[in-house]
């Protein structure tokens, strides 16, 4: 984390309703460059809804999301034109889906999956695209000889790695991750967590990781936000929240898992 003067992301009073049900009820937080924030809570706590509103994948019913761009200062993400927002989403942002199928093009090769963002940004040199794709496959510890295979032939863990490479190829500064390791075998999960940890540290990535798994938060996140019924019940340094939880709900959450 560098000593910046303002946060890279500022989330203020996000509200999201589904009909009469309030899914997210006035959530605010800040994220600084290079900082990894975990949003934890049970399913139905509103954490994924919050993530989608922050990542501008859904429009909130209230509140504001401000992002510090590289060149144009702070922008109100939901007030941007769709074109700007989509450009942001495929350059300075990344989004890692829980289900890799949603984040990948399953019928095109691994190389093209990684290269797509480059091509979208106007790269028109096949050789360079391919080299860049190969180097990212290496960085996410994938077998480079599989560069021409489609994700349909990959295991769950490899698909998730590919999804990560596809997102990081443009060197984003902020990555959203929705349960990035759930649904994988425990050993595969551990290796992927390692990779995510070294990537976020190594690239100084800011990240918001939605997870129900406290061990994931412990390993990846500097800070934690605990959500229940659409509200933040506790926030703080990850080890603080896990080792000295204050809110009854957080205490319950922490005590109901084995040594996070």
């Amino acid at each position, binding site marked *: 984390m560098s000593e910046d003067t303002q946060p890279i992301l500022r989330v203020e009073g996000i509200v999201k309703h589904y009909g009469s049900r309030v899914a997210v009820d006035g959530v605010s937080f800040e994220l600084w460059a290079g900082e990894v924030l975990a949003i934890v809570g049970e399913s139905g706590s509103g954490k994924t809804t919050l993530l989608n509103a922050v990542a501008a994948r859904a429009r909130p019913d209230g509140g504001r999301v401000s992002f510090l761009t590289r060149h144009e200062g702070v922008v109100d993400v939901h007030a941007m034109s769709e074109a700007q927002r989509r450009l942001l989403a495929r350059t300075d942002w990344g989004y890692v889906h829980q289900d890799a199928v949603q984040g990948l093009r399953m019928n095109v090769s691994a190389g093209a999956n990684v290269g797509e963002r480059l091509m979208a940004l106007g790269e*028109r040199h096949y050789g360079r695209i391919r080299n860049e794709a190969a180097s990212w496959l290496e960085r996410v510890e994938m077998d480079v000889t599989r*560069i021409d295979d489609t994700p349909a032939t990959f295991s769950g863990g490899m698909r998730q790695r590919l999804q990560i490479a596809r997102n990081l190829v443009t060197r984003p500064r902020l990555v959203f991750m929705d349960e990035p390791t759930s649904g994988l075998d425990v050993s595969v999960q551990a290796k992927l967590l390692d990779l995510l940890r070294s990537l976020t540290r190594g690239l100084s990535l800011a990240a918001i990781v939605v997870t129900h798994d406290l061990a994931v938060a412990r390993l990846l996140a500097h800070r934690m936000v605990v959500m229940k019924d659409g509200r933040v019940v506790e926030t703080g340094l990850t080890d603080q929240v896990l080792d000295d939880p204050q809110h009854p709900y957080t205490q319950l959450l922490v005590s109901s898992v084995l040594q996070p």
Partner: protein
Amino acid sequence: MNVSDLPAPVERDANFNFAYLDERTKRMIRRAILKAVSIPGYQVPFGSREMPLPYGWGTGGIQVTASIIGPSDVLKVIDQGADDTVNAVNIRRFFQRTTAVEVTTRTTDATIIQTRHRIPETPLAAGQVLVYQVPLPEPLQKLEPREVETRSMHGLAEYGLMHVKLYEDIARFGHIATTYDYPVMVDGRYLMAPSPIPKFDNPKMHMCPALQLFGAGREKRIYAVPPWTKVESLAFDDHPFEVQRWSQPCAMCGDTGSFLDEVITDDAGGRMFVCSDTDHCLARRTADE
């Protein structure tokens, strides 16, 4: 085949409106065409009608032709470059019966040319209209099945995905293996499917003096390339766009620069390569005589 082989001009069947479609429908389609001409390469939705031919037989092209044809037009219809194939013959007959316009096989004589899968070898001239029959108007569809998403991509000119397809070709075959319906950028703005013409014909679309109209009946889309519009075939810097070449000339007219079809001549594996554009081939042969 030459003009004299065509059936003699027929009377228009008075049971049908001129060119089959009612005037309101034609007007609706003409509006779509005007919009398409105004926004080169943009797919304009239109209220595609039931035609007396099944989808896939050129209903989009027929509706476009029906909307622009007038009694003084001269119509040529080709399918794969030939005037005498089933689809071409049927469509030509349809318009003869419903309009009684003059028909021709000569590219130079036609005011409207409806085509499936080719652009004539003879350069088109100002004032001519080339009407394409289009099965799949959306070039991104195979890569991105969600129409809402492809529309956004067009709206925002996000066309990286199309290069993904070309990347895949090179990764798999070592070169861009797409040989027909090869995607183009129209006027530097809209990505467009040129219909399943061979990529050999792509350069002919660029700065063409004739108006090019595209009709997709089943998909209910019309798009256009106005005369003198830039049409650029996509490529990579290190894998530039190239057209097909043949090692031998046309076996019938000796042309070395036209698109050739392989024709099997006997049961013993005998074959020859001849011009796919029959009018072009005939014109060269008669000029030699």
